[in-house]
């Protein structure tokens, strides 16, 4: 029973050696299908598997039942004991060859047509809306974990794992990208579903630009780059955090079309709604799908 995962799935290649541990492409010996194996090592104390892991994996399993087209499918889970203090939870996901990063790199010269961008963004927001309606945050949305199938179907991956990975992260000295991180996370304030909308906004801009919008090298540098575009937020919008507003030089908002020249008028309006500093005023996934940008044709 405990060995089931390693017996049923045969690793083919390493596909991600990221901050969160290794991801393998593997073959399911029963069906011949390719799958992605992600292992999370969780600390087990004398009370067994931590409550947070039990609940999170149970929630992921439950979401499988809805079979949402824009969310990567969790096919199997198993837990094996590594040492007395550590249990390895292996999550078996459907395997998709291409992520949004490679998809954009492969797009021919003038970039993607707006119709295609609209389709990608609609699917991304539909997936996100599904996660948010189940009270799941992605927390680490970026082109690398947005998968695009050969038929152009968008699937969100790596959601809901952020906390499970956290305990492992402290051990890996790999730098996690800050480029898609919402200001409230950079400021270490409280955060909720709007963080994913911020990341979606950054990705939205990147789909037009074919290069990232804000490429900061540290938390403060990232915030500076953000304020150079959206302007320094008003004093009353600044959250109660240790990083003070005075540390940043006053800036007025710049026209977004200076940074994303190819975007349509409605697209620019939606992008600004997503890149709103105050998380409470930022548009929700549900509202974004109703935005005129997706209605016009």
């Amino acid at each position, binding site marked *: *029973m*405990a060995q*089931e995962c390693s017996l049923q799935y045969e690793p083919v290649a390493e596909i991600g050696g990221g901050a969160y541990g290794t991801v393998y492409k593997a073959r399911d010996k029963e069906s011949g299908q390719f799958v992605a194996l992600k292992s999370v090592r969780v600390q*087990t104390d*004398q*009370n*067994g*598997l931590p*409550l*947070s892991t*039990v*609940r*999170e*994996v*149970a*929630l*992921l*399993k*439950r979401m499988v*039942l*809805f079979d*949402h087209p824009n969310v990567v499918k969790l096919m*199997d*889970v*198993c*837990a*094996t*004991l590594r040492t007395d203090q550590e*249990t390895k939870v292996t999550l078996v996901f459907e395997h998709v060859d291409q992520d949004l990063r490679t998809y954009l790199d492969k797009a021919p010269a003038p970039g993607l047509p707006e119709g295609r961008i609209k389709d990608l963004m609609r699917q991304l927001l539909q997936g996100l*809306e*599904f996660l948010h*309606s*189940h*009270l*799941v*945050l992605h*927390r680490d949305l970026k082109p690398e974990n947005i998968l695009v199938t050969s038929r152009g179907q968008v699937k969100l991956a790596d*959601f*809901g794992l*952020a*906390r499970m990975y*956290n305990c492992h992260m402290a051990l890996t000295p790999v730098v996690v990208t800050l480029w898609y991180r919402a200001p409230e996370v950079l400021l270490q304030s*409280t*955060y*909720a579903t709007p963080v994913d909308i911020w990341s979606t906004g950054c990705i939205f801009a990147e789909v037009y630009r074919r290069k990232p919008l804000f490429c900061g090298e540290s938390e403060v540098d990232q915030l500076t780059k953000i304020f150079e575009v959206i302007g320094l937020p008003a004093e009353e919008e600044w959250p109660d955090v240790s990083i003070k507003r005075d540390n940043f030089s006053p800036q007025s908002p710049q026209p977004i079309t200076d940074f994303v020249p190819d975007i349509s008028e409605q697209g620019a309006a939606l992008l600004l709604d997503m890149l709103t500093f105050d998380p409470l005023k930022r548009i929700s996934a549900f509202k974004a799908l109703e935005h005129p940008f997706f209605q016009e044709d």
Partner: protein
Amino acid sequence: MAQTGFCDSRPLPDLHKKAEERCAPLRTWANSCPLKESRTPSEGEKLGEPKYQTEQTYRWVRRLPLSAEDGIIMDYAEQNGSLHQVTGCERKALMDCLTGLSGLQSLTELLPGLLHRELERAMSKMGLICDRTFAWDVFTEMMRTQLRCAFPNADLPPPFTDAMRAILVDWLVKVHMLFHFSEETLYLAVHLLNQSLRRIKVSIASLQLLGMVCLFLAAKKEECLLPEVSELCYLMQNAYSKAQLLRMERRVLCGLRFELSHCPPLHFLLLTASIARCSDKVVLMARYLLELSLLEGQCVVYLPAQLAGAAVCLARRILQEPPTPESEAAWCIASSIHVGSEASLLSIMEIMAVAAARADSRETRATFIKFSTADTLYVSIHPGLKTAPSLYGLSSPQT
């Protein structure tokens, strides 16, 4: 009294033996805390039964590190957020199913709107939803989820029998009370036990361990405070080690593929009762009957909504509260929730009526005792229960 191999081989020694010996494992902790009279002895009830104490139980209490801002789960009270992919077609089919089966065809036109409104009210009262606009989505999701909670047949893989399972569930009811867990935890634990018995191979010797692990996992999913593993082992008279318990936990999680979601019949019961404006006594009686059904092996084939509906129907028949036009109208709306045939409702009511009539004379009487206190309005010793089987043309058991 028939002895099963189950109890001979491993300790669940409190149950299933002579009445005096029956309380043995629970006596280990019952001894260390003072007995408390929790009900009147008027029924000629022996008072040597272990009473569930509070002082003793706080030893295990421990705050769990669960901070909302650090997690993906912001509110787990009821994880049914909204469900946007319920299509109009499914909705109609469900509506047909709801209204078509209860002999209420004439009300079909009227019902959806009324039911909708009543559901919204009842669900916000129960705290199942925080926003009324999601009421229908959450309800539809409950109706769908419950389909996976019923089993195709009541057969247990050998060597297990319904009697063994009943003894184990009865013991879980006691442990559950000891820890002051919520009722949802008990229903989830028994559901996990039913699943595990069918999906993973365990020996009779580890049946009690399996039951405890199911309760532990249910608590991990539902409760804020968890008992220590050593406490659980102690309650099993240290017949199993902590390592064995944790190994069983992994086996259950793997065997069930981490599928720990459940749609407790209790939610349907409270919904029905709230819509039908049932009195507190009817609700308690229905909760008692529903909890008794956990011990009945045949009940696993029925849907949670059917079990809940049958419990409320039977409670109303037993208590015979004088009807008013309002209560009849409210009952009409509420009874449209009980999906399924009249025949299956009747069969469940029969099972419950027989179980309730025999409850005080059986080996497994934790639920009977639980519902015989002043807090529970003495519902389990209501005289109407003795004659309940005759409502269905069955003879009352001689006790």
